[in-house]
């Protein structure tokens, strides 16, 4: 998708809208290709590629707005007509603001030509090597290797025209033994930055070391949460760190912005320009994303704020607004949790006797204000004694308040880019946490 193509499409939209008496138009163009090679039982079993594009048109008529989206380039006029008709028929939104008037935005280079051109055979060969590693350790391999490229352009009738191009790649692998398993996963803007073989070795080693798991009684244990487990659990709170969530009194931060909620060692930022982060440097209306400190030394510091929420709060927008119309207001998606200085070995020594957790699974919110989450451990849960891994454990169910847990963090590793399956990728440390509540034990 070239800039000129997008401008030509935008002209079609604006001409059609004007013919219908509508002048305020915002259009989001996207185009991309995603490919994913999936393997299980030591063979590739699903291998897919998707080429797609879409044109999403929003019109504003007074206090009414609506969106129509199509992937059919021959129906841009019809989609514009649909957006206009929907807006005219919709209920008014008293909070709706006029279209954003653009301010200068600095682009971010997140494009890697080699990743954009990665071939199915190159993915298959990397997968074959990873399978051989896991199989060589006596286990069965399953996982994915994906590569993707995408471009988006956001334009509006106030002269906004922003472009962002990005590539991405993810490798994930599970090694399954007769009574144990191990897992590893990584993602990067550049596929060349991934190390599939090293991830395979890590997963295989975890499966080997967790063989013949023993059952440990439920209870409160000191735990070392690896970065993937940290992001999947702590990641559950960030939907609340927005001005709209607080204004609607559905956030755990409602009425608590002045409290020391976490330990003084917890500082959390949202920073789209962090070198290990991904994503576009502007929000759903085109507002440049600003770096935010969400929590400073345990205390709430700032909230993500859309234009609408900013006007209501008498402040400036932070560039985290969702595309309009929407039900949630804003979202943060470039989380960076400040880490510590201890190596994994040092953290294990500090752990003494406790549980090492590789991965958490099926995390769901039990209490929205205390942020009590339930979930399971998975694919590498270990008993640690005297700072040494002594063997695998049956997996636990936990019921933990993330707010309370972040008061019990005793030590952290340096932060790294991590990925899980329950929250978006983040830059987070491993965390040593005391009194982590495992409430039940499952059968494996």
């Amino acid at each position, binding site marked *: 998708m070239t800039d000129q193509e997008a401008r030509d499409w935008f002209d079609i939209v604006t001409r059609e809208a004007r013919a219908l008496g509508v002048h305020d138009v915002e259009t989001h163009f996207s185009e991309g290709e995603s490919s994913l090679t999936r393997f299980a039982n030591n063979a590739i079993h*699903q*291998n897919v590629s998707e080429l797609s594009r879409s044109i999403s048109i929003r019109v504003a008529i007074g206090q009414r707005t609506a969106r129509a989206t*199509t992937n059919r380039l021959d129906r841009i006029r019809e989609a514009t007509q649909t957006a206009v008709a929907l807006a005219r*028929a919709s209920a008014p939104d008293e909070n709706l603001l006029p279209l954003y008037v653009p301010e200068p935005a600095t682009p971010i280079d997140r494009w890697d030509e080699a990743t954009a051109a990665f071939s199915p055979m190159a993915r298959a060969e990397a997968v074959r090597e990873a399978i051989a590693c896991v199989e060589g350790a006596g286990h069965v391999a399953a996982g994915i290797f994906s590569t993707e490229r995408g471009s988006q352009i956001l334009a509006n009738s106030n002269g906004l025209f922003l472009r962002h191009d990005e590539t991405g790649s993810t490798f994930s692998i599970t090694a399954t033994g007769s009574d144990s398993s191990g897992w590893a996963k990584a993602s990067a803007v550049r596929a060349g930055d991934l190390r599939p073989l090293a991830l395979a070795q890590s997963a295989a080693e975890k499966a080997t070391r967790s063989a013949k798991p023993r059952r440990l009684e439920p209870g409160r244990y000191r735990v070392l949460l690896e970065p993937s487990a940290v992001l999947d659990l702590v990641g559950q709170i960030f939907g609340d760190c927005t001005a709209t969530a607080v204004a609607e009194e559905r956030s755990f931060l409602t009425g608590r912005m002045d409290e020391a909620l976490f330990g003084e060692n917890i500082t959390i930022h949202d920073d789209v320009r962090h070198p290990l982060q991904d994503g576009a440097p502007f929000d759903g209306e085109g507002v440049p994303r600003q770096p935010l400190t969400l929590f400073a030394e345990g205390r709430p510091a700032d909230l993500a704020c859309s234009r609408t929420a900013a006007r209501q709060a008498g402040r400036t927008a932070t560039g985290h607004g969702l595309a309009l119309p929407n039900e949630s207001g804003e979202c943060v998606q470039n989380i960076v949790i400040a880490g510590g200085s201890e190596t994994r070995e040092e953290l294990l020594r500090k752990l003494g006797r406790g549980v090492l957790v590789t991965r958490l699974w099926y995390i769901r919110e*039990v209490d929205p204000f205390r942020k009590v989450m339930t979930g399971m451990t998975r694919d590498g849960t270990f008993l640690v004694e005297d700072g040494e891994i002594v063997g695998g454990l049956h997996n636990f169910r936990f019921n933990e308040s993330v707010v309370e847990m972040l008061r019990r963090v005793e030590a952290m590793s340096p932060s790294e880019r991590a990925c899980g399956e329950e929250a978006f990728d983040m830059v987070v440390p491993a965390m040593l946490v005391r009194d982590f509540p495992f409430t039940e*034990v499952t059968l494996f």
Partner: protein
Amino acid sequence: MQQMALHALDLAAQRGVQYADVRLVEARSQDLATRNGRAAQVADTDSLGMGIRILLDGGWGFAATDDLSAAGIEKAISKARAIAKASAITVRSTVRLAEEPVHKAVWTSPCRIDPLAMPVTQKFDHLLRVDDALRANKAVTLTETLFHATRTRQWFVNTDGSVIDQTRTMTGAGCACYVFRDGDLQKRSYPNSFGGQYQLKGWELVEELDMLAHAGRLGEEAEALHGADACPSGQLPLILDSSQLGLQIHESIGHPIELDRVLGSEANYAGMSFLTLDQLRTLRYGSGIVHVVSDATPAHGPGLGTFAFDDEGVAAQRTDIIRDGLFAGYLTSRETAGAIGDARSNGCLRAAGWDRLPLIRMTNTSLEPGDSTLEEVFDVPHGIYMETNKSWSIDDKRYNFQFGCEIAWEIKNGRRIRMLKNPVYSGISTQFWNACEAIANREHWTLWGVPNCGKGQPEQVMGTGHGASPSRFGGVTVGSL
């Protein structure tokens, strides 16, 4: 459109394949929502695209495109072939597709009032009236209503000769309110949480739900929960309403019976299953009154898993999953049916759209009605009744689960004696179903829609159906969190 699909299939076949199928899918959806009395969502989406699945040299390749020009289709076929050849370098076993008769058919799901043709003003008026009624209780701090409709038309063709034109119309609607007070947030939803009820119907579903009649009660209950006691802890008889039981079926029966999961295909993401192949027809999955079916046929009802043919051209079927408490069957596909000795797939391969590879998915996985009256289900000296899901979690082999509900009542001698808040229950799947003591009759049976079931990489969100009536389970671990 059908000619375009056939043309693409011909092009793929001419270049040499063991098997190929093409799905050309046209979809239109609409989302409307209100929040605290204002419009919060107004969106239409339409898409058209093609997915091409090829088996070549023993490897699978799938390419999807929305560039439906001659060059675009040619490029997608080339991509699918290149992907299949790459897959083949790791092949360990031969793919054998179970036989399926050739089908040439047209099918459209029943829809009395077209939900997409209904005037938007009329739909918003309805949602805003419900929103107003939710806010009638001044303690309510946040309200939300939503409406969703999708019409999907799919032209399926394959190298066996099947040509299937299938149209499905789905509608969903729901409402909820929250009361925040003194550091506690309580919520009540109707007719179900996380979006409401979804069925293969038109606007008539919204009329049947009659949200307006329930809105006032929701506000009262959300406020009353603030003064309610916490659910007591212990091992007690547990009665579940049919919506919560529908999700219990989904998580502790529906997912474990997916044969691809059992065979390891999902090991890296969704996980595996405790239902290893040796359990078939030997495992005592439930008590003798538990009968569960997987039923995609229209006769089962307008479920999100209702269709005439699945997404590899296999006719919709009804399969026993649990019969008289005994584990009786898996969900299968043409590729996996042979693993359990079946000559034919039972028709569970489904794709979330033109851009996704079909996977084994639940259709309508339902607990058949029992023969108890509602009074008999509640007839316990002391127990807990829970209603409307709030949280759900289960381990990656589907043994250990924990569910939370929005509201509960303590039952004594068959009667509700007090409201309880923050209730949760947990257990092991087979132990739970073996403790099933009573199932309400068909009069209380509802076919619930779960519109957001996630599975696969890249993830696919699928709608599934789950019929259930209120039921009682003995000695369940209950408590409050």
